[in-house]
């Protein structure tokens, strides 16, 4: 039987921002499969012009409510590279811990609030409060930990306050760090229960080979700065990020698309894991789920996020031990305003994020460019959709099922749409 299908998801729910899915199948043949971002663009790059560079991290944090710490860090790194500032080791550790808090916050939000309802067949986390109270409580405890972590290290979860050019402006207090350490240890069993929970779900079986781009770890799983790498063997310096992204624009989407060696690339947890598997401190968990590089199932991004959560919790404990052993008097470096150009690449929850600024001798931003992970994933989502629908139709799946699969696929990328039309 040849089927016709017209799927139109207008403003996909449980994602950050506004995006639509259009699927058109005529007589069993795919005519059109589109991922269209319809979010209103905000023009941050234009607004940055003429602003003092110290204000740039404060402004660009507002690109995204979920990964504001990541944006601030990329922005700071770009400025610090432009002005030739070396930040103190302690500040680096504090920043990384803050970022870890954000990664946990974002990943857990996605896993429990946005993705899990699909697997548990409910519309949102709200009915789970009644039906799966235990799961909701685990989710809330883990999110709470992530929130507290950001609050202690960056002053606030959304739009951080104590990350500044040169380092950090206020050190966390040791008492809080002690408590945080305890809290993380206490939450490890919750993370383990989450792993058990996700082992019971059925991840759709879907493969489309693509190119995975991320930072390249040297000694550790990479988060802030370093070389850029792809699974197709491309290796570039941070400054050459444009060669990694090659942005272009499609008419039906307000967010741009990118490509590298093939027609699309993917970034995010799965990309990081594919490129840096050996540095993972939660390899055992990855093995339990059977992810090994190279994994080409985009749905496995959810699992990669979970693996990263455990990795991040372990690494945070190590970082906290180091911080607690050191005096915290040197937290920021002095610097002079001068002309310069710099790029900052940071692995935020959804993938690699670039900020690039040209700063004039008054310290004002002359030109800015920000390339967001979701932008880099858009093309991949778009082409995945086509492939997924074709496979599903061939397997005789019906409208509702295909629609749900499509939605789940987009959600698996955890797109941050308002981010992508910054």
């Amino acid at each position, binding site marked *: 039987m040849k089927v016709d299908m017209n799927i139109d998801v207008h*403003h996909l*729910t*449980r*994602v*950050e*921002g*506004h995006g639509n899915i259009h699927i058109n199948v005529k007589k069993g043949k795919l005519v059109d499969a589109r991922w269209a971002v319809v979010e*209103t*663009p*905000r*023009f941050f*790059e*234009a*607004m940055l*012009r*003429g*602003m*003092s560079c110290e*204000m740039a991290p*404060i*402004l660009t944090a*507002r*690109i*995204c*409510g*979920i990964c*504001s710490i990541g944006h601030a860090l990329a922005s700071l790194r770009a400025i610090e590279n432009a002005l030739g500032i070396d930040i103190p080791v302690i500040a680096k550790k504090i920043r990384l811990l803050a970022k870890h808090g954000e990664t946990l*916050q974002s990943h857990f*939000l996605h896993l429990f*609030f*946005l993705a899990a*309802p699909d697997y548990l067949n409910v*519309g*949102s*986390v*709200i009915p789970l*409060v009644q039906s799966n109270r235990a799961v*909701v409580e685990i989710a*809330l*405890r883990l*999110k*709470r930990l992530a*929130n507290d972590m950001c609050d202690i290290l*960056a*002053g*606030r*979860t*959304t*739009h*951080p*306050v*104590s990350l*500044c050019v040169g380092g950090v*402006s*206020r050190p966390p207090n040791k008492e809080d760090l002690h408590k945080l350490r305890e809290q993380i240890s206490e939450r490890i069993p919750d993370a383990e229960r989450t792993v058990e929970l996700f082992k019971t779900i059925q991840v759709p079986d879907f493969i489309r080979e693509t190119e995975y781009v991320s930072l390249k770890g040297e000694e550790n799983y990479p988060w802030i700065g370093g070389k850029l790498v792809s699974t197709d063997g491309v290796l570039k310096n941070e400054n050459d990020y444009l060669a990694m992204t090659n942005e272009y*624009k499609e*008419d039906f989407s*307000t967010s741009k698309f990118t490509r590298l060696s093939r027609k699309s690339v993917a970034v995010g947890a799965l990309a990081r894991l594919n490129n840096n598997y050996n540095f993972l401190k939660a390899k055992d968990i990855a093995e339990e789920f059977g992810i090994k590089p190279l994994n080409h199932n985009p749905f496995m991004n959810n699992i990669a996020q979970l693996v990263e959560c455990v990795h991040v919790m372990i690494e945070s404990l190590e970082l906290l031990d180091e911080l607690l052993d050191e005096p915290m008097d040197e937290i920021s470096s002095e610097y002079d305003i001068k002309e310069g150009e710099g790029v900052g690449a940071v692995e935020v929850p959804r993938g690699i994020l670039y900020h690039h600024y040209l700063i004039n001798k008054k310290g004002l931003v002359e030109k800015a460019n920000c390339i967001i992970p979701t932008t880099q994933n858009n093309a991949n989502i778009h082409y995945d959709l086509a492939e997924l629908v074709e496979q599903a139709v061939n397997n005789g799946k019906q409208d509702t099922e295909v629609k749900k699969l499509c939605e789940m696929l987009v959600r698996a990328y955890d797109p941050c749409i*308002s*981010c992508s039309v910054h």
Partner: protein
Amino acid sequence: MEYLGIELKKPKVSFFDFTCCEGCQLQIANKEDTLVDFLSLVEVVNFREISSEKKDHYEIAFIEGAISRQDEIERLEKIRKQAKLVVALGTCACYGGVNSLKKRFSVEDVVNEVYGHNPVETLPVKSVKEVVAVDFEIPGCPISKAEFESIILHLVLGTEFRFKKYPVCVECKQNLNHCLLDEGKICLGPITRAGCNAVCINGKLPCYGCRGPAEENNWPSLKQILTEKGFSPEQIDEKTSFFNSLTEVTKNES
């Protein structure tokens, strides 16, 4: 529901986002300690960021974000017709927020800067009240979780919520901070409405007024203080216009 023998209502609420970072909605999803209790106080019928349920019957519409495209204006007008109470959520919705920095340039210029030869549609940024009537405003970039919760409670209890009338300095000093003006920075705490617990200054980030003006806001005096400290009009303006929330008190002086 009852409290002290007084009948309470359970309002149907919806959250809608426009031009913004969705950080304010996230504050609500991030209230881990009280989320479960909160969900029993109100009936959430639309909350796209975390829920697939969509319904057209709601009493209170929370509007997040500024308005910057024709389709947003239409969507907002539709919501206004449906909702009994329209609440602007966050600095973007209340004042335009950081999006207003776009106003420094022409529309063509910003579109060209970002999209080059593939122009997209955009309008000069407006706050929600510039488009439809707004019943209540909750400022903050992002909103304060505690304050939001208290506002909802007041709504449910049927009593009026009052913002603090005094400026951020009170909370700043209550947190034992050292004044940032004294550290050579521009801080707008003295003219900004308190209620955020001085969260920025606690982290040594000066206040740029995301919560809008305090009831008593002696801008001429603060401006003179800043000028005497040697800040240029451009430096001062960069801060006072950052969230577009203080223009009401700063625009008449130049």
